[in-house]
């Protein structure tokens, strides 16, 4: 099969790519990486992702890593297959999508990643949960979500009036976050909550989320 994703279902960054592939209705193969035995930190994996991170991606001869670059590549290369996830018909429109992808990457990701590490990842490895970190990061996340609440009161989706990668990129961490006791951070904000209900009930989201088991 031409499209190969090297990774595993539980990984949020792998899920980001799988969501994009599912939304586009593209065929692909998941090549499992034996992370438990450190396969991602050795060759041959390092020739696919020299940072030893998950996932890596191949489409025939094309080899790319970084989940957010992979999803954009797919959205551009397969623009005419399935839904348009970038708003490709207009540069001014697709740039707003790009802006909110950057917001996810630089404002949302960092506090969310810290919270998920404390609440979900640490317990798996028998590391103690640091409540202070959770509190501090929830405060940061709350401020970011206040801006989202304002944005989503004016627009159905983050990039405009259509579902796009700007929304999709948020899904993997939110799938885990909404299973924690802190999910009220989302549900207490009416427009953010409605947005989450919408994007989480998409068939592609349901299909990929089912495989995200800790």
């Amino acid at each position, binding site marked *: 099969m031409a499209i190969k994703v090297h990774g595993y279902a539980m990984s949020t960054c792998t899920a980001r790519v799988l969501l994009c592939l599912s939304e586009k209705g593209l065929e692909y193969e998941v090549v499992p990486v034996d992370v438990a035995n450190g396969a991602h930190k050795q060759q041959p994996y390092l020739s696919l992702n*020299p*940072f030893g991170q998950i996932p890596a991606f191949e489409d025939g001869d*094309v080899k*790319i*890593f*970084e989940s*957010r*670059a992979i999803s*954009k*590549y797919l959205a*551009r*290369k397969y623009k005419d297959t399935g839904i348009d996830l970038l708003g490709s018909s207009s*540069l*001014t429109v697709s*740039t707003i999508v*790009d*802006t909110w*992808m*950057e*917001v996810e*990457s*630089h*404002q949302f990701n960092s506090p969310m990643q810290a919270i998920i590490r404390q609440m979900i990842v640490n317990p798996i490895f028998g590391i103690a949960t640091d409540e202070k970190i959770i509190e501090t990061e929830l405060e940061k996340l709350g401020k*970011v979500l206040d*801006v989202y609440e*304002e*944005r989503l009161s004016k627009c159905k989706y983050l990039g405009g009036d259509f579902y796009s990668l700007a929304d999709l990129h948020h899904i993997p961490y939110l799938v885990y976050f909404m299973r924690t006791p802190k999910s009220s951070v989302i549900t207490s904000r009416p427009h953010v909550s409605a947005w989450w209900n919408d994007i989480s009930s998409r068939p592609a989201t349901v299909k990929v989320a089912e495989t995200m088991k800790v």
Partner: protein
Amino acid sequence: MVVKVYGPAYATPKRVLVCLIEKEVEFETVPVDLLKGEHKDPEYLKLQPFGTVPVTQDGDYILYESRAILRYYAEKYKSQGTDLLGKTVEERGLVENWLEVEAQSYHPPIYTLTVQILFSSKLGFPRDENLIKESEEKLAKVLDIYEERLSKSKYLGGDFFSLADLSHLPFTQYLVDQMGKEYMIRSRKHVSAWWDDISSRPSWQKVLQLYAAPFKN
């Protein structure tokens, strides 16, 4: 109408300035004093609700997030100035790959070093020497991977200068100048050659001449 770029004294907006010069796009700048907290003024927050620089204003079209601004101008003016994106979807895919690397792996440690070493006294908190040491170690590991990449590829995204390289200019300039950590670049042969190449481009030299850093060396 000429595009306005807010906050030219600072590193992140300088990404946008060098891009606009490469693309031969005229612009004006609007100063924003971060040390006086002007980025948290209600008027500024109307432009950029997260209260960071830069913002660009092109008539009514307002953009923020520097890398989104880079992509917009690189795409909009594709047919003039330097091609910063690549000619095919596949070339662009690799440019985006390494621009993400800059954003996810290079930027966090170098940004921490910038805040701790260059801004801590101005912002009124003590330097965290442990954090500085950790960040330098993280950055060194990333530079080792760059060394390997640049031994096989003239530029990060391929054989042409692109947004992936450009995005590194402002904070790496701080690293080699004001932070006194030029050794991190010079001790790596291919990274060193790459840095000399990209930092000597007339566009970057012009930015350095026109827009001083917000502090002395």
